[in-house]
């Protein structure tokens, strides 16, 4: 062991590094689960601002709506939607793993792809629905 340590000063394997790993879909889904979790943590401010503005009054609510319907606000909201759907779908994947289901590499790869697909298609579907349906006209019987 002592001789090994002495002679491997430059040849010993270095610890894995993010930049030299070949990216895999399972690795990406794991990292993005945490990243979307952190993003949604900040996103809770949006939900709270929305509730507080609705509670506070007409003026503040109109101002928030104006900001959220601006191009910048739209980008934030689309990102928020995708993050919610990704974290939701990948969270279900985690719950199955907790139950010991879906742990094989083949299944884990497949479900990782499905989560990305679902988050993206779901975001598109929600925004298509939101932008093509008139909220004011629907509100009468929306419950």
């Amino acid at each position: 062991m002592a001789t090994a340590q002495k002679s491997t000063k430059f040849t010993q394997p270095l610890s894995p590094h993010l930049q030299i790993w070949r990216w895999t879909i399972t690795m990406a889904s794991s990292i993005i689960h945490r990243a979307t979790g952190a993003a949604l943590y900040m996103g809770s401010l949006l939900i709270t601002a929305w509730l507080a503005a609705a509670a506070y009054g007409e003026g503040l609510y109109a101002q928030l709506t104006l900001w959220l319907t601006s191009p910048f606000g739209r980008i934030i909201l689309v990102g928020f939607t995708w993050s919610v759907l990704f974290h939701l779908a990948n969270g279900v994947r985690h719950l199955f793993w907790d139950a010991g289901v879906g742990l094989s590499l083949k299944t884990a790869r497949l479900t990782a792809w499905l989560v990305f697909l679902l988050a993206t298609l779901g975001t598109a579907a929600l925004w298509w629905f939101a932008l093509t349906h008139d909220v004011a006209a629907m509100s009468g019987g929306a419950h």
Partner: protein
Amino acid sequence: MAQDNVSISAHKGTGSFILQRITALLLIPLIIWLLYGLVTHIGGDRAVVYAWLADMRTVLPMGALLLAMFAHMRIGMQEIIDDYIHTPDLRSMLSFLNSFFCVLVGGIAFWSLLSITFTA
């Protein structure tokens, strides 16, 4: 853990682990419900949203969602802090700020919801 001189309770871990999964299970239907509610009620006047939020059929799931969501967020962020922050003082401070953020922001959200219900 004790050898790191960081005061993380050894018993709290199991509770957080279980609570994170219970809140995750609760949030699955509640988030789907919220997304449906949002796309059908926002983008218009405050009056539309106000009437929806004041309805008891909205208050109960929304209240449950807020409680589960802020609890889930706090545990998740704590996990990130514990994974990446190794300086004991900084870790304690960030842990406190995490709990403070969740209680404060969650409190404002919850209070806003209740104030709509009780003044509507």
